[in-house]
């Protein structure tokens, strides 16, 4: 009797200490999945793909249960609130063969500055591109110059250069695929990713 009681108590304790997985819909409404590759020391082929579900981990065959009427626990809701904002990407376009921004893209710079200023502990990645006019080597140089130009402008706005990086990818990642030596305004761009 005493032993049985102890066993039940241990089981209950074990139940409390089980890791769990709460799967949620993505922010864009799409539903992703988490595969349970191993559980309780053995491989499984369980794939959890129902949103708003809770799964106890550690059993041989993990099964997702709907969150139900109680929804998320308070600590879980607090955790989600604490997630950083998603990365935001800006595209700036250039005049042919130059590091001069189009007038439209110049006008978009204040929004970029605001986005960085609004973030805590920001990181800024600047990636330069060109269209296919000119040699690959020239375009590697030009794309790098475009990215550096944007970085220099951001630094002039008071952002610490150590939070930013700039690279050029030449004509290797075209926004609109074209043949060689094609003038294409959409490909002459710098992408700025703010995290």
């Amino acid at each position: 009797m005493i032993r049985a009681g102890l066993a039940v108590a241990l089981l209950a304790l074990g139940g409390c200490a089980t890791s769990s997985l709460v799967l949620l819909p993505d922010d864009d409404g799409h539903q992703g999945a988490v595969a349970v590759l191993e559980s309780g020391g053995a491989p499984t082929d369980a794939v959890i793909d129902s949103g708003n579900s809770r799964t106890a981990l550690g059993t041989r065959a993990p099964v997702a249960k709907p969150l139900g009427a109680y929804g998320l626990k308070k600590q879980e809701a607090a955790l989600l609130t604490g997630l950083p904002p998603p990365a935001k990407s800006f595209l700036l376009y250039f005049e042919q063969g130059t590091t001069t921004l189009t007038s439209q893209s110049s006008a978009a710079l204040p929004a970029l500055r605001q986005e960085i200023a609004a973030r805590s502990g920001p990181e800024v990645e600047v990636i330069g591109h060109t269209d296919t006019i000119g040699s690959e080597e020239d375009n590697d140089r030009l794309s790098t110059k475009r990215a550096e130009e944007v970085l220099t402008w951001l630094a002039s706005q008071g952002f610490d250069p150590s939070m930013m990086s700039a690279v050029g990818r030449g004509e290797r990642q075209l926004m609109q695929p074209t043949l060689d030596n094609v003038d294409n305004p959409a490909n002459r761009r710098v992408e700025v990713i703010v995290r």
Partner: protein
Amino acid sequence: MLRLPWVLGVVAFLATSPAAAEIARIKQSSGIAVVERNAQKLKAAPGLQLLAGDRLVTGKDGRMSLTFIDNTRFAVGPNSRVSVSEFQYDRTRQKGSFVTTVDRGSLAIVSGRIAKSDRDAMKVRTPNSLLGVRGTKFIVAVPK
């Protein structure tokens, strides 16, 4: 003779730069929130750059949030110990591998480009399970 220190300097730089590559940055923290790196304990202040192998540790009122260079986002809850056991990312090809170990506490994850790059390129380990992340938002909790 004068060239030697310069050469040594370059070698030292080459030797240290891959290990010192930033993988993530702290965005917010509150309460007791520390990044453990080898024997160092760094305060998880906004802007702190993380390296592969770092361990995120919070006290009973501690929290921290961070964003990785592949756009993955983490929120670490109180009483947690979470290690970034492996993080490799090629920014150009947008591919890599990412293993996080949750020893205790709670972690919310919104996965980024690594999870999209290859099946189970991103994994999360808990004391009794191994998860393969297939592009999603979720919470892992490991009670004490």
